[in-house]
């Protein structure tokens, strides 16, 4: 469960915040990344705001591990890609054989890479500190459709079951001589004998699940209530509104700069 939903249940100031507040902050971070043109802004945002929040949320260890595993390879990829393919710019600062590393390319990669870092890390902290059920609940309160939130959460929960089913189908096929290990082409060839049994055996279960849902009044027309109580407070509401206004101002400012 820990690896699956990323959520780590702890008690921290960040955990206690309303999910909508956290989402608003996320939105603000993304808007500010793309409206403020200062090249050092993203990296400063990372060290001054994101790092401390990871500490406050008591998820720093896991946060750091995932950033290293996922974030860094991505950023490295961007750097190498841009260095090779960056068009334009003239100030070559290093050269070996055909590869010309231009200053502009490095600056561009730096900006891009640090933006990616900020986006990944802020989203990661959000997922690490917020219960998925609570996220869906808050989204429903602002209009997200309830049946779709059901589909998302149950996909998450049924995933391990379908995974073990797929494994047993593969085992059964293996015992009949189907090759499943090996290179990617062998894996693809094992696809069709896997998908059709998986689809067909899941179908009878769909009927049972639908029955069970109806037994629990899934299609009732009454407005749904929730057993979860998501904490919210007036300061948080005010904070959200001001942050959204700030985002709006930044967006208008950006348009203003672009047009004039």
């Amino acid at each position, binding site marked *: 469960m820990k*690896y*699956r*939903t*990323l959520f780590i249940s702890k008690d921290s100031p960040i955990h206690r915040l309303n999910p909508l507040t956290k989402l608003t902050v996320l939105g603000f971070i993304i808007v500010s990344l793309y409206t403020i043109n200062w090249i050092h802004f993203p990296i400063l945002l990372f060290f001054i705001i994101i790092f401390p929040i990871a500490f406050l949320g008591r998820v720093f260890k896991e946060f750091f591990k*995932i950033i290293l*595993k*996922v974030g860094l390879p*991505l950023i490295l*990829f*961007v750097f190498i*890609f*841009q260095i090779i*393919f960056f068009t334009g710019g003239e100030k070559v600062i290093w050269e070996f054989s055909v590869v010309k590393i231009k200053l502009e390319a490095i600056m*561009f990669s730096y900006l*891009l890479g640090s*933006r*990616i870092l900020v*986006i*990944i890390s802020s*989203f990661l902290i959000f*997922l690490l500190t917020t219960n998925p059920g609570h996220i869906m609940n808050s989204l429903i309160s602002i209009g997200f*459709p*309830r*049946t*779709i939130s*059901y*589909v*998302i959460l*149950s*996909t*998450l929960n*049924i*995933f391990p*079951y*379908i*995974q073990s089913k*797929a494994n047993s189908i593969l085992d059964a096929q293996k015992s009949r001589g189907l090759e499943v290990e090996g290179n*990617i082409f062998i*894996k*693809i060839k094992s*696809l*069709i004998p896997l*998908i*059709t049994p*998986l*689809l*067909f055996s*899941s*179908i*009878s*279960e*769909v*009927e049972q*699940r*639908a*029955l069970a*849902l*109806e037994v629990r009044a*899934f*299609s009732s027309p009454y407005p749904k209530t929730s057993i979860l109580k998501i904490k919210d407070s007036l300061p948080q509401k005010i904070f959200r509104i001001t942050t959204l206004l700030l985002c709006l101002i930044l967006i208008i400012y950006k348009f203003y700069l672009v047009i004039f």
Partner: protein
Amino acid sequence: MFFKKANNKRDKNKKDDSFKLPLSAKDAALASIVGAIYAVLTMGFAPISFGPIQFRIAEILTVLPFLRASTAWGLFAGCLVANIIGGLGPWDIILGSLCTLIAAYLTSKMPNIWLAPLPPIVVNAFGVSSYLHLIFGLPYFLNVLYIGISETIICYVLGIPLLYFLKKQNFLEEYIFK
């Protein structure tokens, strides 16, 4: 024998309203199973399912909305969940899943079987390349080409036979939606 023309067109008599919200219990249950299968297939064929250079086998399921529109929501959920478990960036989690949803909805509206795999190819090629270009600075048209080709292989070469087979078996009508 395999490509019987008679099965090609969508049955005009049965109108498929299953995309509309709120979903019925049967459609919701179906969507969550489809989503889970999509997520399992994506994770099973990791790591090629992820990254800026993707070859996502699970996309073979994008033909399903042709049979029943509610599976489009399942694909949306499956893409969302797979991207979260796979530890991807929020762009793939939100924008990638939206692309999958839009493509799946369009597939459900396609009039015949040969057009059904087209929306995932078009929407993913142009849509995903857009945000990859904006965020990673990857060259737009190169990506369109690359994603277009990989989606075409998965959705047409693998997807159409699957769709034909399922349609011949009356896949969903037989078991649930009489």
